[in-house]
């Protein structure tokens, strides 16, 4: 690193420190710490939502998957924008905001708990977030760390430790105000870097149409040629093994959809597109942002900013991910991206450092660190508040003087757990995208029917909500442990109990857990609610009337 790079890094960290300090100075109450006081500027809110939504998991993890599986991932970008921004802000944002104010809710589980007058729901939600979110957090940590390793040529473990320490500092100090202010700054850096990246990549591959046309040629030369190779002759997890696997799954090229209802189609549509695309609606760290603005106008304005931001993030990185195959083919002895970088998660970091000028790699470093930190800080904040507000306060009582301390201790504990998982999971193939998809699917299956019903269906009852969350938890867990092809095999519990990798066989093992669990969870909510006594008119009035 030269002196200029050192100075810029120090300035960046100083600005983050300053924004964390501003958040700290403005944090005078639990509402400030938990929901940023409820008066956040729409620009800050939208960029914070977007920067939290788009992490290194999206850029490094899913960008790498795009290099592997191609532009079929653009379906996820469509869902990210249409469902994750438009539907979320236009249809869920304001009802969530208003109900949050009426019920004085400060966290997502607290909103659900108070809507149904149930401490159990709040605690259950808090416990689930505490258990499952580290999975997603570890994915984000791995993504950011991989780039630090590629850029600085440092030890993976050291890079992981440094990033965790920095994020811990400003989450502990500033609460959600500090988190959102730093998110907004990081969102701007991410946006600028992505726009530059798009222009430079199209320039490097000879233009838009030329680049996409070359992709077909590269597929034919480097992947289709594997058609005659036997899978058993390839080393499991190697680049050629992964490309051959994609062909066996029904992929036909980077510009084409996999064969309809093939394993690849089910993976792209049910796990990647629907699992992540729908799962975003019930992300605790994102839902809480709706409660940070003072009016619907802020949400309306955030739709504009959020839509542009998301297409500039996932739209660009998925297209760039696929096009890296062209660049590598032309500049690295006829190899495709996976063959050159060595693995799905390594493609984007390797490409940026190999193909882009040094100055841009440095800018992109900031974009990726920003993406990682903005998501991590929100995740740690959500996990800390789940422990402090949703679990501890429900046991120890409201207004407990130790509540904020417990939240901060909870953040530290969750950071340690997440970092530990990032150490353990690092070598797993495509772990970043998979962990993200699992967490999003879990959130959708467990929380979405209760969240939707709570906002829009007055007849939904507490027992209906609890039954729905229980069914979502049980079915999703069962599917991951005993049915889904990758998780069931790697977790090994099915093998240990029944002697087989999965209880079912065939294409159904490629269907994402959410596709099964969410309808069952929603059906349970409806059936049990109709079978049980409606909630009291006083509670309904408190939830729905000003």
């Amino acid at each position, binding site marked *: 690193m030269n002196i200029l790079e050192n100075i810029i890094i120090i300035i960046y960290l100083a600005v983050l420190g300053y924004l964390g300090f501003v958040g700290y100075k403005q944090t005078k109450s639990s*509402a400030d710490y938990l929901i940023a006081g409820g008066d956040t500027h729409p620009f800050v809110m939208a960029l914070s939502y977007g920067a939290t939504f788009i992490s290194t998991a999206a850029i490094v993890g899913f960008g790498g998957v795009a290099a592997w599986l191609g*532009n079929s991932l653009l379906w996820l970008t469509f869902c990210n*924008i249409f469902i994750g921004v438009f539907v979320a802000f236009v249809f869920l944002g304001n009802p969530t905001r208003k109900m949050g104010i009426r019920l004085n809710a400060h966290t997502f589980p607290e909103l659900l708990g108070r809507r149904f007058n149930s401490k159990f729901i709040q605690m259950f939600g808090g416990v689930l977030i505490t258990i499952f979110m580290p999975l997603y957090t570890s994915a984000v940590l791995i993504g950011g760390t991989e780039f630090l390793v590629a850029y600085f040529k440092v030890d993976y473990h050291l890079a992981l430790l440094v990033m965790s320490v920095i994020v811990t500092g400003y989450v502990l100090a500033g609460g959600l105000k500090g988190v959102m202010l730093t998110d907004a700054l990081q969102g701007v850096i991410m946006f600028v870097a992505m726009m530059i990246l798009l222009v430079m990549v199209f320039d490097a591959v000879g233009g838009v149409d030329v680049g996409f046309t070359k992709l077909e040629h590269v597929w034919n030369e480097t992947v289709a040629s594997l058609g005659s190779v036997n899978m058993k002759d390839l080393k499991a997890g190697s680049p050629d093994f992964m490309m051959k696997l994609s062909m066996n799954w029904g992929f036909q090229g980077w510009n*084409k959809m996999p064969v309809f209802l093939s394993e690849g189609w089910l993976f792209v549509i049910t796990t990647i597109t629907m699992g992540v695309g729908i799962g975003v609606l019930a992300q605790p760290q994102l839902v809480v942002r709706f409660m940070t603005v*003072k009016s*619907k106008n802020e949400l*309306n304005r955030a739709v504009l900013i959020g*839509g542009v931001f998301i297409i500039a993030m996932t739209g660009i990185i998925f297209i760039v991910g696929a096009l890296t195959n062209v660049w590598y083919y032309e500049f690295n002895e006829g190899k495709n991206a996976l063959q050159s970088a060595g693995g799905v998660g390594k493609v984007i970091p390797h490409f940026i450092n190999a193909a882009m000028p040094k100055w841009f790699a440095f800018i992109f470093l900031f974009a990726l660190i920003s993406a990682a930190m903005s998501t991590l800080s929100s995740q740690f904040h959500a996990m800390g508040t789940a422990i402090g507000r949703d679990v501890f306060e429900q046991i120890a009582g409201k207004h407990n003087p130790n509540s904020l301390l417990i939240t901060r201790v909870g953040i530290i504990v969750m950071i340690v757990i997440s970092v530990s998982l990032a150490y353990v999971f690092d070598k797993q193939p495509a772990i970043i995208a998979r962990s993200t998809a699992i967490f999003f699917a879990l959130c959708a299956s467990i929380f979405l029917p209760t969240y939707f019903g709570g906002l829009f269906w007055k007849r939904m009852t507490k027992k209906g909500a609890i039954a729905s969350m229980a069914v979502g938890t049980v079915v999703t867990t069962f599917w991951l442990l005993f049915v889904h092809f990758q998780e069931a095999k790697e977790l090994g519990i099915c093998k240990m109990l029944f002697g087989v990798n999965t209880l079912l066989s065939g294409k159904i093992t490629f269907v994402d857990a959410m596709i099964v669990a969410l309808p069952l969870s929603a059906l349970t909510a409806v059936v049990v609610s109709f079978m049980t006594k409606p909630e009291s008119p006083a509670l309904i009035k408190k939830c729905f009337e000003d």
Partner: protein
Amino acid sequence: MGTFDLGVGTAFWLMNASALLCVIYGVVNWNKDKEEKVLSTKSWDRDEARINKDL
């Protein structure tokens, strides 16, 4: 984008159309909300004790 097949091409254009929808919606509704006055006067902390007691 002539090299995309129908499935990928559809995703590409839907992605752009949904981003455009977000921009148009944001511009049209930039300052349209009239509910602001109803809820903005409420304080987050003010009613905490009463609501906890009620629930």
